[in-house]
């Protein structure tokens, strides 16, 4: 089994699925995904941004907290969530709300991570599920960063043949 490149799909109007394989046992992928000092290594902030807060407690009820600052704003953006479902090394579900430094909410979603391992190669599937269509559309309207994700759905909807 060779690792595949990133695959992105939009199975429903409110979801995005990211699929990627890694040459590592899923235990390690899990640790890399949910341990703060490891997260800081791969969760690359935009140029000029610094990660100021990175907390992650991958157990049911555990918190996810991230914050970034830029030259003008501290924080420039925050992300907060709670883990609602955790099967260590297999599956984790957490909520996620992003806010601008001003406190304005720019989007909420539920993110599910699923890990399967075969012959030392781990496949990670991330499913991003918007709480509602309104939340998704609101996110699109409020900023490009959110629009980025949602536009996949939008373009899909536009370019797909009518149902």
């Amino acid at each position, binding site marked *: 089994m060779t690792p595949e*490149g*990133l695959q*992105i799909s939009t199975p429903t109007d409110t979801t995005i699925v*990211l699929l*990627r394989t*890694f*040459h*590592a046992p899923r235990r*390690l*992928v899990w*640790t*890399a*995904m949910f341990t703060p000092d*490891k997260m800081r*290594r*791969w*969760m*690359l*902030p*935009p140029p000029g*941004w610094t990660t100021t807060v990175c907390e992650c407690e991958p157990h049911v009820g555990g918190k996810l907290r*991230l914050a*970034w600052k*830029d030259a003008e704003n501290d924080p420039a*953006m925050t*992300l907060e969530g709670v883990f609602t479902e955790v099967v260590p090394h297999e599956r984790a579900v957490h909520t*996620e709300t*992003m806010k601008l430094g001003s406190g304005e909410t720019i*989007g909420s979603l539920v*993110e599910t991570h699923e890990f399967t391992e075969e012959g030392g190669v781990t496949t990670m599937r991330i499913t991003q599920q918007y709480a509602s269509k309104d939340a998704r*559309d609101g996110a*699109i*309207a409020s*900023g*490009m*960063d*959110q*629009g*980025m*994700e*949602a*536009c*996949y759905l*939008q*373009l899909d*909807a*536009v*370019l797909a*043949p*009518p149902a």
Partner: protein
Amino acid sequence: MKPIGIVNHMVSDREARLDLVFHALAHPARRAILRQLSGGERNLTELASPLRMTFPAATKHVRVLERARLVRRRVAGREHLCRLRAQPLEEAMRWTEQFRLHWEARFEALDSLLDEMKAEEAPRPAPRGRGRTRRS
């Protein structure tokens, strides 16, 4: 996690335009209109009727699409004919490509990190040469 790497607070014409495009695409009625227009030029009545929408409501949506430069309208006699413009959609799709690139960059960083973690966890014995001590 969100693709924060793509957040860009710089305001440029291009981004302002893309904002209009994403805003325009955010409404199901406007997506339906674009779908209809992908089949060719339509007048406003033709666009309004399958949506069970009043003429003024359809006009309002078409205006939003026009502002985003997704639709061009021309007047022929008493008819307002609308046509799809593909270029802003292509631009928007390049942004979706950015989304993919952003995640790919993150996952490549994750690849390197995982290589390190694997190396730390199981230091490989020297491949050859007897009597060499294993690194601690």
